[in-house]
């Protein structure tokens, strides 16, 4: 990237490093670090279930307008539950088809996609069968939707939550205000 009126710090052949460019790179880098740190903080402090419960609570006022808050949270829970299972099954089916001579990793993208049909169809069958079984199992365990459900660990607002909220708000404001001011004269 080249800027007008910028100050060259270093140049070597076609490579030229300017002050503005270096500052820009540093800022981008810092933003990424911040993003990753925040995401890390979230997953370290909050279990997926708490997250799902939290989202359900957050969106529950919108239920009045037909927003499926509980259903979304339930979908998230189930999706998280079955990711490892599905990965295992994919691996197993792939191996079974390779054992029958399928070549899954040859040729261009279109050919590969076609070669994957022997893996995709069985996976669909398994997933639909599972959806069916799971629906029956949930019904058998008295599930009738979000109405009248309670929770083993109800979410309660505590001092720590307030502190975290205040900190996050201040931090976010500070980040927005300071962005573009630091590192430049």
């Amino acid at each position, binding site marked *: 990237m080249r800027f007008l009126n910028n100050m060259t710090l270093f140049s070597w052949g076609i490579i030229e490093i300017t002050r503005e460019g270096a500052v820009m790179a540093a800022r981008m880098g810092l933003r990424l670090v911040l993003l990753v740190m925040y995401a890390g903080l979230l997953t370290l402090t909050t279990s997926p279930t708490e997250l799902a419960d939290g989202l359900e609570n957050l969106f529950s006022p919108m239920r009045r307008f037909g927003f499926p808050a509980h259903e979304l949270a339930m979908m998230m829970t189930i999706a998280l539950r079955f990711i490892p299972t599905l990965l295992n099954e994919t691996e*197993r089916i792939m*191996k*079974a088809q390779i*054992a*029958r*001579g*399928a070549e899954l990793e040859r040729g261009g993208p279109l050919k590969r996609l076609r070669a994957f049909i*022997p893996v995709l169809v*069985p996976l669909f*069958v398994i997933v639909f069968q599972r959806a069916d079984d799971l629906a029956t199992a949930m019904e058998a365990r008295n599930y009738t939707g979000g109405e009248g459900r309670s929770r083993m660990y109800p979410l309660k607002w505590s001092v720590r939550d307030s502190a975290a909220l205040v900190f996050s708000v201040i931090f976010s404001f500070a980040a927005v205000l300071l962005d573009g001011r630091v590192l430049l004269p």
Partner: protein
Amino acid sequence: MSIDVKGLVHVYHPGTPLETKALDGVTFRAERGSWVAVVGHTGSGKSTLAQHLNGLLLPTEGSVTVDGIEVRRGEGSLRKVRQKVGLVFQYPEQQLFEETVFKEVSFGPRNWGVPTDTLNERVEEALGLVGIGSDLFEASPLRLSGGEKRRVAIASVLSSGPDYLVLDEPTAGLDSPGRRQLLDLLSNLKALGRGIIHITHDMELALGLADVILVLDEGRSALWGRPDIILGELLERDVRGLVIPDMVRFAGRLRELGYEVPLTWEPSVLAEAIDRSHER
């Protein structure tokens, strides 16, 4: 003509914190026309071993040789080995995907490049072996009964013309008629000269059917030999996670009490012996 496994070691995820040794120096031989049962608890390395026999996994150390061809990358070794050794995974019916039974069973041979004129013959032969009649050739494999699906899945491996068949818990989930039908099929294949490698956690089944039994424990070969020898050994020492058939424990207990009974897995033989010994 045999599959020879020598000092086979398999390490999953080497060099990472997830590193696990699934197989640790397994040695055995499976010959054509014989039935080898590989018995062990869940996590003993049975399924890892199965995948080595047709090159889905490659040895970390040691070797696997099929009719003189070593399983390794390059020189088309894997393709040759995979055609020689058919692998039937647990619940193989889950791999079915074609529109018709016939297409399903021709999937393997087509992949191996079997010419069209012999292809139909192969498919019909395989379906005939598993007892699926021509009335079902055009049916969707997904609409068959549980037992039929399983047999079609096995036919889809047989159609590639393997000399050895490795089956991981082939009877799991079948009821007793389905089970008997499947075991008859395997005996039949053995009589036709195929090598059967039957992976199971059912000791009673292994004792009754196998010519040789390999017992795995934590990835090591704990026992290897004829069923009658294995039977004696089992009473001597405890192999982790292996459930010794009640009948064998019963015979062992009676021997301790002075009965002259053989260690056997034939109920009538044991009952006869108890009768004779009891009179004395």
